[in-house]
């Protein structure tokens, strides 16, 4: 299972990550839902 991205908290393991200190205070820390292994496109390419 892919780890939750920075700024995200996975809803299942409650592994809270504090946002970096340089981030604005109004940026929420999201609870991630769903499967971690579904296809996404990132960094210029897609899981084909």
């Amino acid at each position, binding site marked *: 299972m892919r780890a*939750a*991205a*920075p*700024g*995200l908290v996975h*809803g299942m393991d409650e592994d809270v990550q504090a*946002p970096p200190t340089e*981030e*604005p205070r109004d*940026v*929420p820390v*999201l*609870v*991630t*839902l*769903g*499967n*971690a292994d*579904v*296809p*996404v*496109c*990132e*960094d*210029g*390419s*897609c*899981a*084909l």
Partner: protein
Amino acid sequence: MKVEIWSDIVCPWCYIGKRRFETALADFDHPVEIEWRSFQLDPEFPRGKAIPVYDALAEKFGGGREQVREMTGRVKDLAAIEGLDYDFEHGVMVNTFDAHRLAHHAKSQGLGPEMHERLMRAQLIEGQTLSDVDTLVRLAEEIGVEGAGPVVTSDQYTADVDADIQQARLLGATGVPFFVLDRKYGVSGAQPAEVFAQALRQAAENSAA
């Protein structure tokens, strides 16, 4: 409830994710405001350049056209299940920044969702060239967006596109599609419709609590 969706127009999983989310939304009984937000998968792709998708993929991953065709077969099959007839054979890779600026212009006229749908269809199904000014203007006019020409040929809405991309990064998105429900829950990727349905229910319950 508000759902923000970060997406890039050239992203095949984004269109599939859009359809699956819409399937979940169709059975959801609460009012939902949808806001499409910009994301660029390849901001370094030269603006003005337009090359066949297969050539772009072959350059990125190596191999020939036949190998690329095999690579894209799975996503094409999954898209078909959602009623999307992807045409990578005639697809054209471009920098999507201008298309995103146009989408923000459409949003200012209350036509953001319609513009995203039209642009994704043009890119992934119809093989249209979204770096072409006339094409972008025509697509905007088709859905009733006014004043597209001056937007496409200028740098209007540049700050809005940049702000969306920055917001995505701050929220922890590393890829798209990326769905944010009430700025509380994040759902990444082309999840099954039932996962979107569960996320919608959870967000609704949280907001009612």
